[in-house]
């Protein structure tokens, strides 16, 4: 699926759509119970062309997929909150780090989905790049 203005929120990327996820990411999300509740019929009928393919990935699935695909980091824990998300990940064998994405109090977005998109975008474009130099030094 192509990237467009509708895939951005306040200059940050929104969560990718389920149809953009690799088969491995979908299976991983299923195994972790991230794709449950109403997803079954869509999966039964096949993903392509279904309404599911066009939906945004659940926040944890999007985070796990991004960390793995771009940095080969395994996510150990995701701690979600309505206006924040904290992620602990493995960046080298037996070594972990935590990054957080927190919405400023004055930022009010129309829907919880917009909140999740902003938290994702801020995490991968602002917070994670901020700690990467420290991880390289630590490694």
């Amino acid at each position, binding site marked *: 699926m192509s990237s467009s203005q509708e895939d951005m929120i306040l200059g940050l990327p929104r969560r990718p759509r389920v149809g953009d996820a690799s088969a491995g990411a979908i299976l991983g999300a*299923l*195994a*972790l*119970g991230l794709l*449950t509740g109403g997803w*079954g019929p869509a*999966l*039964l*009928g096949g993903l392509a062309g279904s309404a599911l393919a066009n939906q945004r990935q659940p926040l944890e699935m999007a985070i796990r997929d991004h960390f793995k695909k771009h940095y080969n980091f395994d996510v*150990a*824990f995701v701690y979600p909150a309505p206006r924040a998300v*904290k992620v*602990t990940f493995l960046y080298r064998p*037996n*070594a*972990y*780090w*935590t990054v957080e994405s927190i919405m400023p109090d004055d930022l009010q977005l129309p829907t919880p989905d917009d909140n999740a998109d902003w938290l994702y975008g801020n995490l991968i474009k602002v917070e994670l790049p901020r700690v990467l130099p*420290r991880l390289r030094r*630590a490694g």
Partner: protein
Amino acid sequence: MNLGQLENLENLIAEIRRVLSADDKTSLGNALALEKEERLINEGKSRFDVIVFGDLNDFKRINDENTHDAGDLAIKVVGETIRTTLIEGLKAEAYRQSGDEFIILLKEESLERFLLLTPSFGNITFSYKDKELNTAMSFGCARSDGKTSFRDLLERAEVACQHAKVQGNGACVEWTENIELNQLVRISGSCQKCGARITCNVPQQNAPAKLKSCPCCGSSLVLP
């Protein structure tokens, strides 16, 4: 519904079942999965006959000094060590019951090898935010006699684990009737080294009338 869809549905249900019995912090089973095995043990249908109870030593210290994120990681790395050492190595099954409490099920023929492996749980290290941290476990175990329920065996293993903690990190104590007779007593005093108030559990028979040194750190102890 055609055959392909039926197969997909079966796979989905199997996946949901697996997710329901998986622990959220480790790759072990959760309390729900343990309940299933508990039923088998109580019905005499389980292949396991030794129940091991273990929990993290000084878990509160990790949480207090390094945040709960580090505590969660301690649970995760211990879970990984249990998986590689005991599940893959001894064909055991392991569960996280709650918090930092783990339950391992063994066949009696594996018990001897298990006892040789427990010292490797005496110092489990990991790095969090560039800081080296460590955690440790002690274990208690109880053999099934075919007459005692799972819950009673677990209680025995927990009592034995308290005795193992007195022996130190990585220790394992097997429950015997003698352990039940020689219950732990709580002794409090002030450590002369730092003046801190110390409370220790020591086996009743081994506790002298006037304890001169702290059984935890060995330094002189002033009793009230």
